[in-house]
């Protein structure tokens, strides 16, 4: 994958005071045939503009639910989600999503999938085509432009999904365990790509994962959740310009500061897994 020397997104001239996205007092309760289930206890998360936040926690802790609420795809039982200080409303391209299972439209080619968000919001053709070409180049998909999703490997499909989410220039990017369905090697490659991409374009990202290593490698701030009903257990900052950023994820393990943070996060998660 080549990182184009495209101009990184211009820093906002008018600095928005306050966080870019705020999840306030959100909880979620499901009603199922077995009765009521509390998936999320009250959570508060604030993400600053340009920040890459990773959320990690034991299985079933509700981190995906939290993300779905943040994306506007599910309604919280209490609390609300604010973007730039105002209630965010239902899902839309301001907060685009990358799903674990890719969710590519099977009846559309790679190019059509990526363009989808631009088409439905009525972006002009010339603009659409130029953005499409840009994304295809950035994600290394040029030779698959007219292929159908089922003809691609898992890694390529997820690249298409990421391209599709980025081409709409979202204000916030939400990623729900995006590499969970991929094999270990593809996962490493994509993790490194995301890290490199990050340095060039500073999106505001909320990234859900169950891998502690991935969370520390990618995140500026790691949010650890407790077991169900999930609440925010602890938030740990990770230096943004650490030496191991953008390099091979394997190599990061050689750095003491990386290991220290990783161990700290892992201990917190382990507590939750082991706790009765």
């Amino acid at each position: 994958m080549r990182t184009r020397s495209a101009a990184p997104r211009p820093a906002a001239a008018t600095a928005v005071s306050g966080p870019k996205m705020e999840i306030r007092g959100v909880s979620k309760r499901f009603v199922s045939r077995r009765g009521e289930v509390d998936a999320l206890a009250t959570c508060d998360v604030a993400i600053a503009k340009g920040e890459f936040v990773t959320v990690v926690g034991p299985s079933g802790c509700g981190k995906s639910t939290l993300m779905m609420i943040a994306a506007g795809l599910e309604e919280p039982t209490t609390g609300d989600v604010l973007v730039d200080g105002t209630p965010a409303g239902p899902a839309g391209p301001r907060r685009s999503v990358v799903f674990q299972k890719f969710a590519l439209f099977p009846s559309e080619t790679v190019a059509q999938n990526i363009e989808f968000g631009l088409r439905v919001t009525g972006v002009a053709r010339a603009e659409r085509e130029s953005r499409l070409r840009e994304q295809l180049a950035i994600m290394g998909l040029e030779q698959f432009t007219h292929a159908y999703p089922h003809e691609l490997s898992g890694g390529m499909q997820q690249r298409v999904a990421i391209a599709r989410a980025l081409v709409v220039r979202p204000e916030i990017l939400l990623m729900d365990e995006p590499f969970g369905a991929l094999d270990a090697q593809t996962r490493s490659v994509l993790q490194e790509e995301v890290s490199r991409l990050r340095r060039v374009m500073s999106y505001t990202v909320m990234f859900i994962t169950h891998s502690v290593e991935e969370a520390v490698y990618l995140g500026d701030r790691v949010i650890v959740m407790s077991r169900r009903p999930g609440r925010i257990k602890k938030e740990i900052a990770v230096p943004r310009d650490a030496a191991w950023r953008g390099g091979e994820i394997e190599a990061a393990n050689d750095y003491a500061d990386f290991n220290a943070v990783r161990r700290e996060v892992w201990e917190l998660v382990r507590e939750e897994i082991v706790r009765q």
Partner: protein
Amino acid sequence: MTSGGATPGPMPRARRVQPAILYGVATLGILLIAWALATSAFALVAPRLLPSPAVVIERAATLITTPFSGATLAGHVVASLQRWLIGVTFAVVLGIPLGVLLAWLPPLRAAVTPAFELLRFIPPFAWVPIAVLWFGASTTTQALVVFIAAFPACVINAQLGVGQVDPILQRAAQVLGAGPLVTLARVVMPVAAPSAFTGVRIAVSNGWMALVGAELIVGKQGLGFLISQGQNNDSVSTIFVGIVAIGLLGALIDLALQKAQARILPWTPAAAGAR
């Protein structure tokens, strides 16, 4: 989020569907009332064409007690069920083993499939004239039509069921020392059984539909015959009673089989069969 639209997904189970039931009952109720009004109070439709609900119920009562065209309602029902049962039994007893063998022995499959495919597309009713030629207008004719209607579904679904058994199970049996027959009986059949059973359900219902048609065309007894007699005598209420009986029986049969499947084969996954 969703403004009034439904989010597609798996069919929702009947869990707290109060609104759905209310709507359903209300709609049927309204239709029933409209029917009654149109035929009696407002007389929008000639009673010859569409009798009122009361007349239909009365007719049903009459049919239950008094013979019409040879038998009471119960008599016709029994006659229909008999023929259906014969045809279906043959279809299942012959069809399922054939399906299993077709999946199990590729040479047999290569030999039989062309003929099978050719004959499959001839609708069961197209066999009625030639069956009448061969056997006359008798029970055999109708049982044959039922058989022809039910046979393909049994074969195809049994074949699919066996064909979809993971080969790794057979290899496991083989390395444990099982011969072909034992593998077939104790490993493959149980796994293929749900699919085969689904085939039976489809076959049985196909057979029921075919029977009614066959009885319409030829016959001296049975629900199909009852309906055609209703037509000949210009008695729409008789036709209605017949139709209701047919629909009801068909639904009951399928329901009974569904329950049986849950009992006998509790490991049935929610799979669909070939039609």
